[in-house]
């Protein structure tokens, strides 16, 4: 009984922060509350949900968010594994290198998003400076949709690969070295060892990385809000940015709540798919 008492304050705050908002959105998504209703709540049944299903921008943003998340996380996984393998070897200065490599992850996203905006600046940023030095034309990185999207991926990979590398490094430290020695005695090359020993044994760690990173990347907000503002022409807009704009710029609270709940349901479906996939691969393995 005293156990529950000890947990009560934390659980109450958790309910207030995580559960109450979702209930609030469920209610709000059945109301119209915008400048057209004088910001008063007016029940409208499923009108917001019908609008969501037919809202091209919502589905466009859902696709853009998914594309951003899958490509960024895939790149982070590959780069993170390479960095983890490098940081796992013994060499002088490894500890300091680990600290410095972690810096991008520790910085506030908005700080470095502003930094990247300068790096991609046309024509004064360093990349375009280099292009000019080589006698080439400058590239408007943040003004062309595909390039701006690429810029968001680069900045995200830069920022979060250290996190991925650290988790995989923790996994590498769990693999007994004898395995590699035995494998080498039987004539296996290091490259084969990577695929036959390292990757299979890292699988639980890779799963955790995917869980954390996909959830974060699908909710991407800070980076896009500062680096591109969702532009040009909302080509880099994520669902979270769209929900934010609906509430804070269009002052359409009922619809903003619907967008967020819609995004939540999509995430839930994604999580279920990931769990099923894990069960499937576990049975096979």
């Amino acid at each position, binding site marked *: 009984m005293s156990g529950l008492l000890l947990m009560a304050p934390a659980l109450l705050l958790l309910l207030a922060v*995580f559960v109450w908002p979702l209930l609030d959105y469920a209610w709000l998504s059945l109301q119209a509350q915008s400048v057209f209703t004088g910001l008063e709540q007016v029940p409208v049944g499923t009108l917001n949900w019908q609008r969501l299903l037919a809202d091209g921008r919502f589905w466009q943003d859902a696709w853009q968010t998914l594309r951003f998340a899958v490509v960024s996380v895939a790149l982070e996984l590959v780069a993170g594994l390479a960095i983890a393998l490098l940081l796992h070897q013994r060499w002088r200065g490894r500890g300091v290198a680990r600290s410095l490599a972690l810096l991008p992850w520790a910085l*506030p996203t908005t700080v470095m998003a502003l930094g990247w905006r300068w790096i991609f600046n046309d024509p*004064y940023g360093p990349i375009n400076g280099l292009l000019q030095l080589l006698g080439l034309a400058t590239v408007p990185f943040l003004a062309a949709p595909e390039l701006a999207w690429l810029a968001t991926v680069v900045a995200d990979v830069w920022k979060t690969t250290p996190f991925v590398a650290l988790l995989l490094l*923790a996994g590498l430290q769990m693999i007994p070295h004898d395995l590699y020695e035995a494998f080498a005695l039987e004539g296996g090359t290091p490259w084969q060892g990577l695929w036959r020993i390292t990757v299979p044994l890292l699988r639980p760690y890779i799963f955790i990385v995917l869980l954390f990173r996909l959830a974060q990347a699908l909710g991407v*907000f800070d980076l896009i809000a*500062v680096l591109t503002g969702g532009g040009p022409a909302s080509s880099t807009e994520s669902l979270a940015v769209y929900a934010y704009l609906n509430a804070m710029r269009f002052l359409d609270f009922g619809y903003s709540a619907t967008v967020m709940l819609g995004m939540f349901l999509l995430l839930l479906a994604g999580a279920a798919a990931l769990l099923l996939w894990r069960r499937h691969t576990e049975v096979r393995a």
Partner: protein
Amino acid sequence: MRVSTRAGLVALLLLWSLGPMLWQLYTSLRTPEALLASAGGLGGGWTLANYGAVLSGDPPFWRYLLNSTVVGALSTLLTLALAIPCAYALSRRGGLLRLLVGGGLLAAAVFPYVLLFLALLQVARQLGLANNLLALCLPYAGLQLPLAVLLLQAAFAELPPELEESALLEGFSLWQRLRWILLPLMGPAVVSTGLLVFLFSWNEFPIALTWISRSELLTLAPAMARIAGSSVYTVPYGAFAAATVLGSVPLLALLLLFQRQIVAGLTQGAIKG
């Protein structure tokens, strides 16, 4: 791997990790004329004026750093005060409740919390918490509780039960057992949990952005966004870069001081959670 190959790869890694930061440092120290004349040139045009401009702004830049530090420290204390008893109770229970709460906490820990901002903003307005710097600690503690409880719960579970049983026989109360027997042994876990909470609160953006509108109360992250938005077409970026550098230095210091604890917390959190 050959030593020279490895040295090359390490250099590449550090260039990739630190290059963008070093570029900000370089930009922040150049005059506007020098930046417009040649990107990457080293001749002439060095200045500290960009830092002067940022530090004498209204409000001065150090104010944002101070605000972030205050919010970060208080959020960390509040989170630990709530998480430690909860984690203790959870670790002393078996069975279904622990499994259920644990699963719920893991789901909450990975949940993209930006989705919650609108409802939290409404609560803040109704309770009159908007534009109250200290009130930010409430959502921050709530958002970080899942990770904190999972981490501390795992640390409690690793302590041998005999330790507490003998203290119980000595007639120690629950508070005494926690304060004098268990917590002293959990130092590393408490420190790494606290650091992760502090980093989150220091860096948090969407909630601070919507709760705080008065510029002297802004924390670092929304202040940077406001700086970014206020003068989009102002080139060159000398003052922006100075702000980026000043915003990064405290975290660089924190990282160099506590690298080991931060890494421990991070990996434990993911693996035990």
